[in-house]
Protein backbone atom coordinates (compact mmCIF):
# COMPACT_ATOMS: atom_id res chain seq x y z
CA UNK A 1 0.00 0.00 0.00
CA UNK A 2 1.38 3.37 -0.95
CA UNK A 3 0.19 6.92 -0.62
CA UNK A 4 -1.22 9.06 -3.44
CA UNK A 5 0.87 10.45 -6.25
CA UNK A 6 0.86 13.97 -4.72
CA UNK A 7 2.40 12.67 -1.49
CA UNK A 8 5.01 10.63 -3.36
CA UNK A 9 6.06 13.54 -5.59
CA UNK A 10 6.25 15.90 -2.59
CA UNK A 11 8.44 13.40 -0.76
CA UNK A 12 10.72 13.09 -3.81
CA UNK A 13 11.08 16.87 -4.05
CA UNK A 14 11.59 17.45 -0.31
CA UNK A 15 14.07 14.61 0.27
CA UNK A 16 17.34 16.17 -1.08
CA UNK A 17 16.74 19.48 0.70
CA UNK A 18 16.05 17.80 4.04
CA UNK A 19 19.17 15.64 3.69
CA UNK A 20 21.35 18.62 2.72
CA UNK A 21 20.05 20.63 5.69
CA UNK A 22 20.73 17.73 8.06
CA UNK A 23 24.28 17.33 6.74
CA UNK A 24 24.76 21.11 7.19
CA UNK A 25 23.67 20.86 10.83
CA UNK A 26 26.08 17.95 11.39
CA UNK A 27 29.00 19.68 9.67
CA UNK A 28 28.52 23.02 11.45
CA UNK A 29 27.86 21.36 14.82
CA UNK A 30 30.79 23.02 16.59
CA UNK A 31 30.04 26.61 15.56
CA UNK A 32 26.22 26.85 15.31
CA UNK A 33 23.31 25.38 17.32
CA UNK A 34 22.77 21.71 16.68
CA UNK A 35 25.24 18.90 16.35
CA UNK A 36 25.56 15.25 15.51
CA UNK A 37 22.34 14.03 17.11
CA UNK A 38 20.18 16.88 15.81
CA UNK A 39 21.56 16.67 12.26
CA UNK A 40 21.24 12.89 12.20
CA UNK A 41 17.63 13.18 13.36
CA UNK A 42 16.90 15.66 10.56
CA UNK A 43 18.44 13.34 7.93
CA UNK A 44 16.47 10.39 9.36
CA UNK A 45 13.32 12.52 9.06
CA UNK A 46 14.01 12.84 5.32
CA UNK A 47 14.40 9.07 5.06
CA UNK A 48 11.18 8.58 7.07
CA UNK A 49 9.35 10.87 4.65
CA UNK A 50 10.21 8.59 1.73
CA UNK A 51 9.49 5.43 3.76
CA UNK A 52 6.02 6.65 4.74
CA UNK A 53 5.15 7.76 1.20
CA UNK A 54 6.11 4.57 -0.66
CA UNK A 55 5.00 0.96 -0.39
CA UNK A 56 7.12 -1.52 1.53
CA UNK A 57 8.60 -3.41 -1.42
CA UNK A 58 9.68 -0.14 -3.09
CA UNK A 59 11.36 1.00 0.13
CA UNK A 60 13.10 -2.37 0.41
CA UNK A 61 14.66 -1.88 -3.02
CA UNK A 62 15.49 1.80 -2.42
CA UNK A 63 17.21 1.61 0.99
CA UNK A 64 19.59 -1.34 1.49
CA UNK A 65 19.53 -2.61 5.07
CA UNK A 66 23.20 -3.66 5.12
CA UNK A 67 24.25 -0.05 4.41
CA UNK A 68 22.32 1.17 7.47
CA UNK A 69 23.92 -1.50 9.66
CA UNK A 70 27.34 -0.46 8.37
CA UNK A 71 26.52 3.18 9.09
CA UNK A 72 25.44 2.41 12.64
CA UNK A 73 28.48 0.27 13.45
CA UNK A 74 30.88 2.53 11.53
CA UNK A 75 29.75 5.64 13.38
CA UNK A 76 30.26 4.00 16.77
CA UNK A 77 33.66 2.63 15.72
CA UNK A 78 34.73 6.08 14.47
CA UNK A 79 33.65 7.63 17.78
CA UNK A 80 35.49 5.17 20.02
CA UNK A 81 38.44 5.00 17.63
CA UNK A 82 38.87 8.77 17.77
CA UNK A 83 38.84 8.53 21.56
CA UNK A 84 41.39 5.69 21.63
CA UNK A 85 43.71 7.37 19.10
CA UNK A 86 44.72 9.86 21.77
CA UNK A 87 45.70 7.03 24.13
CA UNK A 88 47.91 5.49 21.44
CA UNK A 89 49.77 8.81 21.17
CA UNK A 90 50.36 8.98 24.93
CA UNK A 91 47.53 11.35 25.89
CA UNK A 92 44.50 10.70 28.11
CA UNK A 93 41.29 9.17 26.73
CA UNK A 94 39.42 11.63 24.43
CA UNK A 95 42.25 14.14 24.60
CA UNK A 96 41.79 16.82 21.94
CA UNK A 97 45.17 16.39 20.24
CA UNK A 98 43.90 17.66 16.88
CA UNK A 99 43.14 21.19 18.13
CA UNK A 100 45.66 23.87 17.02
CA UNK A 101 47.74 21.21 15.26
CA UNK A 102 47.47 22.81 11.83
CA UNK A 103 46.19 19.58 10.23
CA UNK A 104 42.56 18.44 9.83
CA UNK A 105 40.15 20.68 11.81
CA UNK A 106 43.12 22.33 13.51
CA UNK A 107 43.56 25.89 12.29
CA UNK A 108 45.69 27.48 15.02
CA UNK A 109 44.78 31.15 14.39
CA UNK A 110 41.10 32.09 14.11
CA UNK A 111 39.85 35.57 13.13
CA UNK A 112 38.59 37.80 15.93
CA UNK A 113 35.44 39.89 15.93
CA UNK A 114 32.15 39.28 14.17
CA UNK A 115 32.60 36.67 11.45
CA UNK A 116 30.58 33.77 9.99
CA UNK A 117 32.70 31.21 11.83
CA UNK A 118 35.77 29.21 10.85
CA UNK A 119 34.72 25.69 9.89
CA UNK A 120 38.21 24.21 10.05
CA UNK A 121 38.57 24.50 13.84
CA UNK A 122 37.60 22.53 16.90
CA UNK A 123 39.97 19.59 16.62
CA UNK A 124 38.05 16.55 17.82
CA UNK A 125 34.56 17.97 18.08
CA UNK A 126 33.70 17.95 14.34
CA UNK A 127 34.90 14.33 14.15
CA UNK A 128 32.68 13.42 17.10
CA UNK A 129 29.73 15.23 15.51
CA UNK A 130 30.25 13.42 12.20
CA UNK A 131 30.50 10.04 13.96
CA UNK A 132 27.35 10.63 16.02
CA UNK A 133 25.53 11.97 12.95
CA UNK A 134 26.31 8.88 10.87
CA UNK A 135 25.28 6.61 13.74
CA UNK A 136 21.98 8.39 14.46
CA UNK A 137 21.13 8.52 10.74
CA UNK A 138 21.53 4.75 10.40
CA UNK A 139 19.91 3.88 13.72
CA UNK A 140 16.75 5.97 13.43
CA UNK A 141 16.21 4.92 9.79
CA UNK A 142 16.52 1.28 10.89
CA UNK A 143 13.87 1.87 13.58
CA UNK A 144 11.42 3.20 10.98
CA UNK A 145 12.28 0.37 8.55
CA UNK A 146 11.64 -2.33 11.17
CA UNK A 147 8.37 -0.61 12.10
CA UNK A 148 7.13 -0.68 8.50
CA UNK A 149 8.34 -4.26 7.98
CA UNK A 150 6.09 -5.32 10.86
CA UNK A 151 3.13 -3.61 9.18
CA UNK A 152 3.99 -5.08 5.77
CA UNK A 153 3.89 -8.64 7.27
CA UNK A 154 7.15 -9.39 5.46
CA UNK A 155 10.57 -10.30 6.80
CA UNK A 156 13.08 -7.53 6.16
Amino acid at each position, binding site marked *: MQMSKIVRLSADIMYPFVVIFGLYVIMHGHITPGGGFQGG*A*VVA*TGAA*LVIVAYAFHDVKAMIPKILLYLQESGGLLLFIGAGLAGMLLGFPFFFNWLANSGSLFGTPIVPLGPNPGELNTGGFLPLMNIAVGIEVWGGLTL*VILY*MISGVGKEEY
Partner: protein
Amino acid sequence: MIELVVHFLVLAGLVVSAVLTFYFRDLLAAALASGLFSFLISLEFYILQAPDVAISQAGIGAGLTTAIFIIAIRGTRRFEEGTE
Protein backbone atom coordinates in the same frame (compact mmCIF):
# COMPACT_ATOMS: atom_id res chain seq x y z
CA MET B 1 5.31 43.84 21.25
CA ILE B 2 5.30 41.74 18.10
CA GLU B 3 7.24 39.04 19.98
CA LEU B 4 4.57 38.94 22.66
CA VAL B 5 1.81 38.59 20.05
CA VAL B 6 3.64 35.71 18.33
CA HIS B 7 4.24 34.10 21.72
CA PHE B 8 0.54 34.22 22.63
CA LEU B 9 -0.45 32.94 19.17
CA VAL B 10 1.90 29.96 19.56
CA LEU B 11 0.56 29.19 23.04
CA ALA B 12 -3.05 29.40 21.81
CA GLY B 13 -2.13 27.12 18.89
CA LEU B 14 -0.64 24.63 21.36
CA VAL B 15 -3.89 24.45 23.32
CA VAL B 16 -5.99 24.20 20.15
CA SER B 17 -3.85 21.42 18.62
CA ALA B 18 -3.85 19.46 21.89
CA VAL B 19 -7.66 19.67 22.09
CA LEU B 20 -7.95 18.67 18.41
CA THR B 21 -5.71 15.64 19.05
CA PHE B 22 -8.14 14.59 21.77
CA TYR B 23 -11.35 15.17 19.80
CA PHE B 24 -10.56 13.71 16.35
CA ARG B 25 -12.14 10.33 15.59
CA ASP B 26 -10.08 10.04 12.39
CA LEU B 27 -6.80 8.72 13.77
CA LEU B 28 -4.71 10.00 10.85
CA ALA B 29 -5.98 13.53 11.52
CA ALA B 30 -5.26 13.05 15.23
CA ALA B 31 -1.68 11.98 14.45
CA LEU B 32 -1.21 15.04 12.23
CA ALA B 33 -2.61 17.30 14.98
CA SER B 34 -0.11 15.73 17.38
CA GLY B 35 2.62 16.54 14.84
CA LEU B 36 1.38 20.12 14.71
CA PHE B 37 1.61 20.24 18.51
CA SER B 38 5.25 19.11 18.31
CA PHE B 39 6.01 21.66 15.61
CA LEU B 40 4.46 24.49 17.65
CA ILE B 41 6.33 23.47 20.78
CA SER B 42 9.59 23.51 18.80
CA LEU B 43 8.68 27.05 17.70
CA GLU B 44 8.09 27.86 21.37
CA PHE B 45 11.56 26.52 22.24
CA TYR B 46 13.01 28.75 19.54
CA ILE B 47 11.21 31.80 20.93
CA LEU B 48 12.56 30.94 24.39
CA GLN B 49 16.15 31.07 22.99
CA ALA B 50 16.84 27.32 22.83
CA PRO B 51 17.51 26.61 19.14
CA ASP B 52 19.38 23.38 19.94
CA VAL B 53 16.35 21.83 21.64
CA ALA B 54 14.12 23.24 18.89
CA ILE B 55 16.00 21.32 16.18
CA SER B 56 15.79 18.11 18.24
CA GLN B 57 12.06 18.58 18.84
CA ALA B 58 11.33 19.35 15.20
CA GLY B 59 13.31 16.31 14.03
CA ILE B 60 12.20 13.73 16.58
CA GLY B 61 8.79 15.00 17.68
CA ALA B 62 7.33 16.47 14.53
CA GLY B 63 9.08 14.17 12.06
CA LEU B 64 9.85 10.69 13.32
CA THR B 65 7.07 10.29 15.89
CA THR B 66 4.42 11.33 13.36
CA ALA B 67 5.92 8.92 10.82
CA ILE B 68 5.77 6.07 13.37
CA PHE B 69 2.13 6.94 14.20
CA ILE B 70 1.21 6.97 10.50
CA ILE B 71 2.90 3.59 9.94
CA ALA B 72 1.07 2.16 12.98
CA ILE B 73 -2.29 3.46 11.68
CA ARG B 74 -1.49 1.83 8.32
CA GLY B 75 -1.27 -1.50 10.17
CA THR B 76 -4.62 -1.12 11.97
CA ARG B 77 -7.94 0.64 11.28
CA ARG B 78 -8.05 4.32 10.46
CA PHE B 79 -11.21 5.29 12.36
CA GLU B 80 -11.74 4.97 16.07
CA GLU B 81 -14.93 3.15 17.00
CA GLY B 82 -17.08 5.36 19.21
CA THR B 83 -18.75 4.12 22.34
CA GLU B 84 -21.66 6.55 22.31
